[in-house]
């Protein structure tokens, strides 16, 4: 099935793999994945790759404004889409199922479990991440604890270089109890498959009214922090809802073209990038 089985997989060279997990949907996994990629690639000239294993709802192409891109195959394997950043001094490499669909905007992927598992295996085996090893590979996951999650863990387990790769989970939650309940299940999953947890991020924690600066806790506050105390996990920090970030993602094509810049430079101008930088420090990411 995979054509370069005998070759050394390029993912084996990766230094750190971060799995972004949450039992609940819509808490901002893709948003946190994106921000992790943007922030990490802006420091120390890190080489960062993003792998989107949400097969039935891939949002990563939209987040990076890569919706019409297609993956090409080389003799080494599938080539990720490269996005130049920081005035072309660095690139982000992105892989998503969205790049394999004919009409990535409308086509739905209606696949049963075994087929989804096979797809994830191909993403691990067949993607050629480049000659330079990646400093960080950030993996965006679908909600829940099902086939995709089992498959990714199984596939990461058989990497040849596993002892040298630092594999950690980043858990994302929103503050309300409904979300915390699902996230506890995800933490339970991490325990069962023996996946180390880097920490928990509380996303959508408060909303600052752009008119009067009054902060409303739309989805309450502190749930993630309390969860960490209860389960003795590292708490990485709060991220507020920032309409400016949503705007940057939704209209990045125009914003980037207008300022003649790139996504990372524009992101670093936002207030939320400073909040996120605290998370990077708290998580001891370099």
């Amino acid at each position, binding site marked *: *099935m*995979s054509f370069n089985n005998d070759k050394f997989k390029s993912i084996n060279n990766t230094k750190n793999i971060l799995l972004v997990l949450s*039992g*609940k*949907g*819509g*808490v901002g996994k*893709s948003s946190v994945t994106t921000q992790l990629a943007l922030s990490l690639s802006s420091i120390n000239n890190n080489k960062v790759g993003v792998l989107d294993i*949400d097969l*039935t*709802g891939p*949002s990563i192409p*939209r987040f990076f404004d890569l919706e019409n891109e297609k993956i090409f195959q080389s003799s080494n394997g599938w080539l990720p889409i490269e996005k130049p950043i920081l005035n072309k001094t660095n690139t982000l490499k992105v892989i998503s199922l969205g790049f394999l669909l004919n009409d990535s*905007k409308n*086509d*739905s*992927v*209606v*696949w*049963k*479990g*075994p*087929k*989804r598992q096979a797809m994830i295996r191909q993403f691990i085996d067949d993607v050629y991440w480049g000659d330079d090893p990646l400093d960080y590979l950030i993996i965006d996951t*679908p*909600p*829940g*604890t*099902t*086939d995709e999650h*089992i498959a990714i863990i199984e596939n990461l387990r058989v990497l040849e270089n596993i002892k040298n790769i630092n594999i950690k989970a980043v858990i994302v939650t929103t503050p*309300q*109890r*409904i979300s915390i*309940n*699902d996230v*506890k*299940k*995800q933490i*339970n*999953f991490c325990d*069962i*498959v023996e996946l180390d947890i880097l920490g928990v991020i509380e996303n959508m924690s408060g*909303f600052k*009214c752009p*008119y*009067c600066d*009054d902060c*409303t*806790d*739309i*989805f*309450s506050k502190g749930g993630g922090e309390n969860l960490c105390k209860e389960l003795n996990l590292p708490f990485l920090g709060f991220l507020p*809802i920032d*309409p400016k970030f*949503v*705007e940057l*993602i*939704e*209209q990045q094509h125009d914003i980037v073209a207008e300022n003649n810049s790139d996504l990372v430079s524009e992101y670093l101008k936002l207030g939320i990038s400073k909040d996120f930088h605290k998370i990077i420090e708290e998580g001891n990411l370099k």
Partner: protein
Amino acid sequence: MSSENNSNTVTEEPLHCPGPESEDAGTGDACNSCNYQQTCSSNNNLPKVEDPDIQLIKDNLSNIKNKILVLSGKGGVGKSTFSTLLAFLLSSDPDLNIGLLDLDITGPSIPKMIGTMSDTSNAQLHMTSNGLIPNYVQDNLATISIQYLLPNIDDAIIWKSAKKETMIKKFLKDTLWSDLDFLIIDTPPGTSDEHILINKLLNKTQSVTGAILITTPQEVSLNDVRKEINFCQKVGIKIMGLVENMAGFVCKNCNRKTDIFKATTGGGESLCKEFNIPYWGKVPLDPRLGVCCDQGESFVDLYPESEATLCLVDIVENLMDQCEL
């Protein structure tokens, strides 16, 4: 991969195997590379055996007038919240009997939202010789969820698709719903095993009345909902209407409205025009709604005058128009 298997007798079926019981057995594209192609295609003249569960499900659901799916390609847009609110609103009419089925196996939220579960303990389901007795919230509102079957509240369910299918089938064929006017089916995000299965089962028994799509206004969400519309059209589910959730937030301090999830591409309304789907309106973000869901209280009963409730009442009227009573 086949080189790993030395024995000729054991080979894996190809990735896109249509299955020996399907119409395409032995004739699909994938079958050309399969060792069992002959066996499968020669079987084609034999009568097809229908899944025995289908008849059981048909019998069990025969007393339900309307079966409504709540769908969205995206997670966290409010499927469970909407399902809960819809169940509460419909059940405020004492003449109607409502069932609420939670198909989200790996992230069940219904029990918490509808108030059948406290922080520390689960409500339990009772198994009788006739089947599963659902959990009653009120006399005319019954719920089923995997959460009721877990020994500990935080236990994770890490199941591959086959096992999830067994569970879903069990819910459909063994639940003692009695006579229902509405069965609301809350689904997990995506277009995955749960969706394929429930549609296959309900299509072969009696097709679902229709699906309600939930979205939030921003393009990231609409993108996933387009896929869901595509899915519904592929498998032939009627889309009854689309609801735009979390549309706008009013600051309680200055009373000015902000579109937190900005509809940069026209939001749900233009999506509905594009696909010719009825647009059922916007439900605004109300922080009190989140609190009610966390505490398992009925928002529509506590805040009957709120904008969100008024929107929902309109939506229920739209829904009723397309249902039989």
